[in-house]
């Protein structure tokens, strides 16, 4: 089977602009959460985009464009010359909700000023495929291009789908990832109405006191390539997408299956497609939302899928540092995982102090530590689960 490698990464998150900024600050135990929200407060669109580019893009698309510039520059795709035929480069980007800020603003206009005042830009800005459309236009990408919509699993689904596009032979490279900008009044009220948001405003995954997720915003973009072609052109390889598993709980619209059956199935499939066993896994980047239901079901799923190995490896949650980036989460966490694998490090679960009975994995409380890999290339799983019962799991391996 064709191997798929990652040759560029970029991110905009509550910890700052840049993939390395995200990873280094998380590793150092810094949090991007303030006042119960993970706002991408260091992001200023004017620093990165022209007036026209910025006003033609909802905030979720702006995040994707800036993360995309970073990833494509690293992969050597920027500067007007693409290393493959434009028709052989795809662009697949996930989002949970799309341009909900644009939707809410235009609904205010409709209500207050009437239908003639609704902006002609409303539809092109709020559509959930706006981010891949803008990336394709910005970089002249002409292959398969579309959005992936699977709530909080969208970023991981996008990466998995992109790897499959390369393996199926229709693309040599894919610009992929996930993006979300849903810190809006309607979205916050709606998640709060579901009792999904943390009333305390604290993201402490797996801790006994956890009381819901803290919403964050941002994006990550990755450049995936056919490994042989990437090596031929001398690209620097950051990691390999070894496997991908996806499943549906077919159980409940919002609650995960209590025993994590669907999640466990996706983890097993990610390992099977990677040709690996539970013993090969060195680190799990958990979905770890800090909701009572997810963190329990996910712990059970990891144990069910990995058996005895589950108790021997570090499991940590990026959401402890940046909150839950919804449709961007799977991509942002994959990017953080790639850098952790590179450095052979397990970043921490921040805020973890109180053990809950049954939640007994090694959650890497509060301080990063080296992975124990005995010189081999470490392998990680990156989990993402979404409302609708969607599960997507990536199996990633460090480069040389």
């Amino acid at each position, binding site marked *: 089977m064709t191997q798929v490698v990652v040759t560029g990464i970029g991110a905009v998150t509550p910890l700052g602009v840049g993939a390395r900024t995200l990873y280094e600050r998380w590793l150092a135990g810094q949090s991007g959460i303030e006042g119960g929200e993970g706002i991408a407060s260091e992001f200023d669109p004017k620093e990165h985009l022209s*007036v*026209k580019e910025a*006003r033609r893009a909802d905030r979720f698309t702006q995040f994707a464009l800036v993360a995309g510039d970073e990833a494509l520059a690293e992969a050597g795709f920027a500067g007007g010359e693409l290393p493959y035929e434009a028709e052989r480069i795809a662009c697949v980007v996930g989002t949970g909700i799309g341009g909900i800020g644009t939707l809410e603003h235009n609904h205010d206009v409709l209500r207050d000023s009437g239908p003639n*005042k609704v*902006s*002609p*830009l409303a539809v*092109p800005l709020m559509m959930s495929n706006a981010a891949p459309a803008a990336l394709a236009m910005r970089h002249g990408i002409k292959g398969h291009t579309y959005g992936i919509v699977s709530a909080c699993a969208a970023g991981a689904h996008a990466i998995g789908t992109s790897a499959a596009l390369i393996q199926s032979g229709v693309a040599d490279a894919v610009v992929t990832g996930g993006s979300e900008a849903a810190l809006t009044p309607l979205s916050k009220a709606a998640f709060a109405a579901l009792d999904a948001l943390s009333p305390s405003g604290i993201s402490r995954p797996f801790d006994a006191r956890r009381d819901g997720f803290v919403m964050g915003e941002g994006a990550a973009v990755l450049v995936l390539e056919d490994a042989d072609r990437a090596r031929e052109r001398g690209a620097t390889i950051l990691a390999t997408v070894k496997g991908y598993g996806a499943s549906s709980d077919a159980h409940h619209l919002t609650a995960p299956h209590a025993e994590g059956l669907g999640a466990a199935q996706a983890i097993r499939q990610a390992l099977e497609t990677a040709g690996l066993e539970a013993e090969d896994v060195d680190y799990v980047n958990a979905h770890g939302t800090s909701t009572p239901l997810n963190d329990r079901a996910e712990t059970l799923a990891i144990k069910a899928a990995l058996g005895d190995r589950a108790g021997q490896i570090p499991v940590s949650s990026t959401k402890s540092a940046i909150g839950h980036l919804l449709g961007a989460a799977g991509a942002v966490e994959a990017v953080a995982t790639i850098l952790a694998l590179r450095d052979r490090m397990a970043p921490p679960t921040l805020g973890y102090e109180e053990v809950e009975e049954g939640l007994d994995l090694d959650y890497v409380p509060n301080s990063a530590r080296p992975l124990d890999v005995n010189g081999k290339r470490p392998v990680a799983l990156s989990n993402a689960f979404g409302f609708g019962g969607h599960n997507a799991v990536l199996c990633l391996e460090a480069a040389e």
Partner: protein
Amino acid sequence: MPEKTITPEAVETTVREALEQFGPEPDEITLDATFEQLDVDSLDLAELSQIIEDEYGVKLKGEDVGKIKTVGDAVDLVVNRAG
């Protein structure tokens, strides 16, 4: 909001202010400048039409807007429609 009286000067000011929001530099916006030169496209012109209608009560037809090429054409179209 009461509609403004249409004069070539007033319409030119409105068009200039609208285009400045869309991205072109103010000194690039002359009556002879083409929309192509200013990177003003059909979505910008849809927004411009909405602003004109808002300020002057003149509804521009999509087919007419589709034919104009320069900033001056846009001003003339509005002024002529009012006449």
